[in-house]
């Protein structure tokens, strides 16, 4: 899949384009022409999400173009913009955000409540491949859209709050004595962080480390 940034000058777009510094072919990742967008990725959090989606796109090489946005409001609040995304041809939305300090069930309940602020959740589907992915069949006006919600973070890391940095630390081999994965990731040297991003070029490693993101993406592309 190729990513079309609905704000080409956004920080998210710049972060993905900078992946070329780590050996990724960003001309393959970033689409210049949107065509008709029927699938959309909505990012709820900061820089690592941008980079991970860029790398995911690299591993899911293909011609299909998918729109990608990062709204001004972060976390679950990003779901408040669903109606704006539903105005056109979009049929599926992949939403990725950190689990934070919530339990998994609590996380998905919060997601449901937030989605229901904008429309009706007709049914919910669990993903057989990963329990950190759920699909909400959402209806607003005369539109029916599948919203695939992915909780970033890993229970393998014993931290108070689960974030996408959990996965990056695991690739870096840091799995114990982690209080806050976000802070721990930022505390690494720039060269150490770059080394981790370079390691993600290994598709097998990436797909293990970011299992729920890959599953969510498969659901989106189906």
């Amino acid at each position, binding site marked *: 899949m190729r990513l079309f940034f609905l704000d080409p000058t*956004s920080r998210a777009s710049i972060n993905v384009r900078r992946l070329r510094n780590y050996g990724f072919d960003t001309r393959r990742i970033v689409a210049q022409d949107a065509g008709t967008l029927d699938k959309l990725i909505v990012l709820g959090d900061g820089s690592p999400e941008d980079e991970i989606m860029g790398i995911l796109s690299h591993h899911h090489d293909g011609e299909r173009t998918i*729109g990608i946005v990062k709204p001004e*409001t972060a976390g679950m609040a990003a779901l408040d913009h669903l109606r704006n995304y539903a105005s*056109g041809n979009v049929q599926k939305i992949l939403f990725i955000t950190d689990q934070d300090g919530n339990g998994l069930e609590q996380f998905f309940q919060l997601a449901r409540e937030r989605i229901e602020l904008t429309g009706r959740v007709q049914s919910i589907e669990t993903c057989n491949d990963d329990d950190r992915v759920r699909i909400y069949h959402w209806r607003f006006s005369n539109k029916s859209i599948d919203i695939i919600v992915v909780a970033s973070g890993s229970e393998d890391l014993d931290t108070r709050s689960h974030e996408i940095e959990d996965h990056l630390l695991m690739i870096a081999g840091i799995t114990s004595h982690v209080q806050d994965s976000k802070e721990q990731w930022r505390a690494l040297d720039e060269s150490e962080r770059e080394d981790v991003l370079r390691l993600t070029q290994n598709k097998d490693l990436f797909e293990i480390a970011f299992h729920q993101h890959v599953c969510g993406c498969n659901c989106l592309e189906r």
Partner: protein
Amino acid sequence: MIKNLTIQGFRGIKEGHISFSPITILLGSNNSGKSTILEALFLAPNPCRPVPYCVPQGETFPSSAVVTVYFLHKTLDYAGYAFLLHNYTSKNAEIKIETGNSNDNLQEMQDKAETLAVNTNEHFIRFLKKDQYIYLQSSSQKSIVTEIEVNGTKVPVYCQLHDSGLGFNCVQSDAFTEDTLLLSPKLSLAGYEYLRRKWPEIVNSGISRRVAKDASELSWEHYMDFTMEPMIGGQLDLYAYLEDGRRIRLGDLGEGMQSYVLSRILCELRKPEVILWDDIESHLNPRMLSHIADWFGELVREKKQVVISTHSLEATKVIAGINEKDSKICITTIRNSVLKTKSLTLTEVEKLQESGIDARVAEGLML
């Protein structure tokens, strides 16, 4: 006021339709049909009418609208008028406009539309290709001069454009409907050449003094008037004349001021009912854009209409924000040669931005 435009087989658009407001802002990415829409509106009153430009290689003064549009596309390195026809190969092209008397603001127009049908007048210009010529047909009765046979049918035409050069034979050069004026950074030199030749009229009618006073609001210095005087080498050049007697060459005042002064003088001179401005953000800083937005508001109050194209969200926000009731933002795109448009309000554009969507590239999502 022009309410609707329908295009068939004209330049890059095989077919398309767009509606207008008192102020319409065409917003879109490159090659999304914005300039073609403006050019269609510019040609619609009559491609052969004289317009306030003097383009290089133009055979007449002032140049005609169709020669001016040709000049805009001279990089095509093609001498004839076939560029007007879709893919250069279409047998005919049509530009149809609907005009109406109503010049009310958007809300009033919508209210009226719900209660009564608004009277509109249709007018079209057709380009018909036959042999080495392109003939012009118009819906205006006074434009019928002769007839040609196309597919066994006699068609009334009034102008013959040579396919191999810039010349044409035309006996009807009046505007058949509301006059339009295209402003574009690419036409600056052609506009200045026109001003040089018409300068006595511009000074004697008081236009230069009025525009100087207006332009002073954008400068630290107070301009009394604009004058045309010999520059080193003898060529006449345009100067801003200051209170203390100093003169500043307009060319030294910056591209933005030049563009603004030229546009104001041309509009004052020509008094078009519809002003078309391509790439309005070019050379204009936010202060100038705000000033121009105020001017557009005045034009609308004078029952005039403005259609502009831009890539700039900043320009869009300033112009639509200052004239919110009269403005419509129109996203354009061309898919398989078909023009697609979607109207948005400023609030909707801002909401999209909050959602992480830049309206300029959102056509794939919305159209």
